[in-house]
């Protein structure tokens, strides 16, 4: 993997958030700040993992990049263009199941190209190609409820990758899976991603997963979220998620990043306890 330095002069970053702030009006009428003054740059082809305490606003950051939500203040740019509405180059893998339960596996993967006006035959061909890459060719006629959680997630990956996104946003995609399936899925994700050259922003609360997958790990503060610290993961690629965990450098990085992240987790927990009391 060619590693591109995001701060290199002249390179247009894939994603650029500058001073992005997002406030929501809660049902009780008060303003809730989810993201505050967030600056983040992601280079083309870079894999960035975002870690932070639960509920700090990591997911909101992704919805800002995807165009599902607009920032209250600040600016979000994708390949130099300000984000307004959904960007066709963006793919999004959701935390919960978001495959369409009334469509078969094949039809689910075809959905993206069909929505974009690709003829059915071509869409079917592309969908079959991606289904074989995620190893689900034999299941194309099944409905999602007939699959396991891991298989549904693979459908979601194929459904996203079939659109050839230049930017891939992933919101704790594997958090609902069991530990073994999660490791397999992580490896599969790295494999799928390796060929595409797309940029990935991967939100997770699992630091192991973040280090194993990413080029850089961004630590967020307790909510409202803003970037606290950024760590470069200098582990060689291609990586195998299980093997990389055993490397001394991995442990070193883990200790370093956890020192930063742990503090924010503690702040969040103390706040939660204060609220509960």
């Amino acid at each position, binding site marked *: 993997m060619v590693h591109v330095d995001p701060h290199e002069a002249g390179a247009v970053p894939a994603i650029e958030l500058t001073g992005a702030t997002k406030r929501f009006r809660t049902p009780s009428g008060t303003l809730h700040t989810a993201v505050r003054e967030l600056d983040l740059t992601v280079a083309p082809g870079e894999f960035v993992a975002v870690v932070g305490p639960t509920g700090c606003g990591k997911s909101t950051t992704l919805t800002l990049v*995807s165009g*599902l939500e607009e920032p209250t203040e600040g600016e979000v740019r994708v390949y130099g263009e300000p984000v307004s509405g*959904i960007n*066709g180059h*963006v*793919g*999004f893998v*959701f935390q*919960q*199941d*978001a*495959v*369409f*339960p*009334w*469509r078969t596996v094949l039809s689910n993967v075809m*959905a*993206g190209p069909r*929505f*974009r006006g690709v003829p059915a035959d071509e869409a079917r061909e592309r969908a079959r190609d991606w289904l074989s890459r995620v190893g689900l060719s034999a299941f194309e006629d099944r*409905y*999602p*409820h007939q699959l396991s959680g891991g298989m549904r997630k693979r459908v979601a990956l194929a*459904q*996203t990758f079939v*659109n050839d996104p230049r930017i891939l946003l992933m919101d704790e995609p594997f958090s609902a899976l069991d530990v073994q399936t999660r490791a397999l899925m992580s490896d599969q994700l790295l494999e799928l991603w390796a060929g595409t050259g797309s940029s990935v922003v991967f939100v997770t609360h699992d630091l192991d997963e973040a280090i194993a997958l990413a080029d850089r790990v961004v630590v967020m503060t307790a909510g409202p979220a803003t970037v606290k610290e950024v760590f470069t993961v200098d582990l060689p690629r291609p990586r195998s998620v299980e093997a990389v965990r055993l490397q001394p450098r991995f442990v070193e990085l883990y200790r370093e990043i956890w020192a930063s992240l742990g503090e924010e987790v503690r702040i969040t927990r103390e706040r939660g306890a204060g609220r509960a009391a």
Partner: protein
Amino acid sequence: MPLETAVAAPAASRTEVRERAARNRKVGVYGARAAVLAGFLGLWEVCSRTGVIDPFNFSQPSRIWDQIRQWVTHGTAQGSLGEQIGYTLYEALTGWVLGVVGGVLLGIALGRVRFLADVFGPYIKVLNAIPRIVLAPIFLIWFGLGPASKVASAVVLVFFPVFFNAFQGAREVDRNLVANARILGASNRKVTLQVVVPAATTWIFTSLHVSFGFALIGAIVGEYIGATKGLGLMVAAAQGTFNAAGVYAAMTILAVVALFTEGLLTFAEKRLFRWKPADAGDGR
């Protein structure tokens, strides 16, 4: 092979025992059901024959049966029995289809477009608050004695439950599914047609079951108030000649018709919801 059977024998016999128990239980349930029906009808028959209840008011099963047989073989005063059933079904079905189409279209439109919901919401609530069955006499004045007035009362009865369910269904579509469709490239129209409509069908179908019953009620009440044909008219005519057996007989025929159409709907639902897990789909 002998070894295998020897090992498998106790397990197999245990499965067999369980299967037999399940079968026995099923037979028991059906038997008990039949016994309840027979007991009820028998008690009714005996009570009216011995004069415990007045057969003139309460009739008796044998007379009701005779009445049905007479209608089947000799026709009713209004024409053949099949024609009466056909009329009522025609009115109910037409009203049901119109009410369902209107309810679904409006429900989804208002569920999707906030502005429409804000404007029309209060009016629909007011209309829904009117006890709609009292509209039947008005429809009789407007549309005459023919099927149109019955269709109209069926429509107003069917429309509201279907509308509210479609509206709710369109509102409560999983936000993740909508967001996913939009990211994948769906336009607003495609989100409505390919995400909201299929997601709302579960809600809509629940209302279809109930609302077909309402359509029948609308048709029958309309016929009862004034008509030239139909099961409701038969009830009214039987009542007018103090023929209690006739009223019960018409009711029995109605129940059979309603059960039959309910069965058809359940069949259609099973075909349509193949994508649903079998255990979660059935609300019973």
